């Protein structure tokens, strides 16, 4: 299994193909529904004025996202009272909800890797080719196991979004994932869907 260190270079990204299992090392940041909508509305479409700590957070996450990896995850976190944060459970959430935003976020911040589950659609696949980037599939529900690869929580932004929706900056070691969308236009999700559709049509044709 291949080990990858974040941030990721274009060369590394281009060498990854659908089906490759990888282990990720280094700093990654979580972001899901609220974070994606906030990034797009405030800094990309600019349909919303920056408020409160928005600009500060923007400058803090920009270098983390450049060449970096965003993880669709709403963790269970211990130590909320003492701010000695520790991930207790941290599996991926369903990625397709970020489809309206993900390509724009990848291009704006130069995000090279997106981790989640269930795969994403054509806009994200196009962004993977352009940026270039990859979609990495983690095992949905394997939350205790994945939490053990989060060796440190380095900080948190936008905790006012709530614990699951906040942007948690973490250091990971041997975080396991599989490439299911690559920078060459390959998507395991497209091929599984096409195959299952053909079987479904056949089954529906039977009485």
């Amino acid at each position, binding site marked *: 299994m291949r080990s990858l260190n974040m941030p990721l270079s274009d060369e590394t990204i281009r060498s990854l193909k659908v*089906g490759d*299992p990888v282990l990720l090392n280094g700093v990654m940041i979580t972001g899901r529904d*609220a974070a994606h909508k906030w990034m797009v509305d405030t800094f990309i479409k600019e349909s919303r004025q920056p408020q409160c700590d928005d600009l500060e957070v923007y400058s803090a996450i920009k270098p983390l996202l450049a060449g970096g990896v965003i993880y669709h*995850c*709403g*963790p*269970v*976190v*211990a130590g909320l009272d003492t701010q000695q944060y520790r991930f*207790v*459970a*941290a*599996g991926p*959430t*369903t990625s*397709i909800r970020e489809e309206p935003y993900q390509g724009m976020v990848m291009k704006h911040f130069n995000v090279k890797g997106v981790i989640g*589950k*269930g*795969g994403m659609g054509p806009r994200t696949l196009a962004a993977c080719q352009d940026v270039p980037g990859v979609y990495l*599939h983690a*095992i*949905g*529900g*394997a*939350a*205790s*196991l*994945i*939490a*053990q690869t989060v060796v440190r929580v380095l900080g948190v932004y936008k905790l006012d*979004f*709530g*614990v*699951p*929706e906040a942007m948690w900056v973490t250091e990971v070691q041997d975080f*396991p994932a*599989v490439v*299911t969308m690559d920078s060459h236009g390959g998507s*395991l*999700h497209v*091929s*599984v*869907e096409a*195959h*299952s*559709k053909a*079987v*479904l049509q056949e*089954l*529906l044709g039977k*009485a």
Partner: protein
Amino acid sequence: MQDITESILELVRLTSTDLPPDVEASIRQAVLQEEPGSAARGALETIIKNVELSRQNSTPICQDTGTPIFYVYYPAGWSTRALRQQIEAAVVQATKKSYLRPNSVDSITGKNSGNNLGGRHFPSIHFEEVEGDTLTIELMLKGGGCENVGAQYSLPNDALNAGRDLAGVRKVVLDAVYQAQGQGCAPGILGVAIGGDRGSSYYASKETLYRKLDDANPDPQLAALEGKLVEEANQMGIGPMGFGGKTTLLGTRITHLNRLPASFFVSVSYMCWAYRRRKMTITHTAVKYE
């Protein structure tokens, strides 16, 4: 009335961190069906490792600890108002102890309550009075990923050529599995309700998920359909996590309700492999967990 908050807290801990034996056995069986070295087998092996680790460390199997759905069957003499307070208190404590993720979000303001309480419907609690002297509380934790891929069909459905009979039910359920792909954390378990109104139908589709995987449907026609649906869904090759493979469903549970002449709903609740449901009984002071 006795205070059973601590016992309910233990029910929540057990449900969140220890997968029921029938579900674990079913996943272990599925591992053997998948090709060695395949992504599907790798996913299932990781799932098993995670199940073992969660049990050992008492940490949530999945970070999405879902909507806590309680069904309370109480003998005469118990106060449902007091039981509700104790369930809520247990849920707050379970959140503090990281058995539950704070999951209750105000739909208008977007604010997370932080303690898993919020209005009369979070957590979701159903009460029913029963005979005898045993109090039974069943809990299911149903995550958002699988909840989002649930579906309701109104028959006849022209696009799927599905009429108002079991053959039509089969077709729409297969469509629901196709639509869900890997997004509900396959391999999944389907709760299917035929009939009812839109609301009662969805409720019944969830209630049927409290049945164990090896519990045969008493109606032979429905038992046969349950088996057939699993077999046919698994032919679709969606596989664990949607990676491709032989195991798309672990089981299907079908129930039925009377309907209006004008309506014929089929409701499908998709449950992810992290099928967290547990039961607690209290007879006098003896507490038992299943």
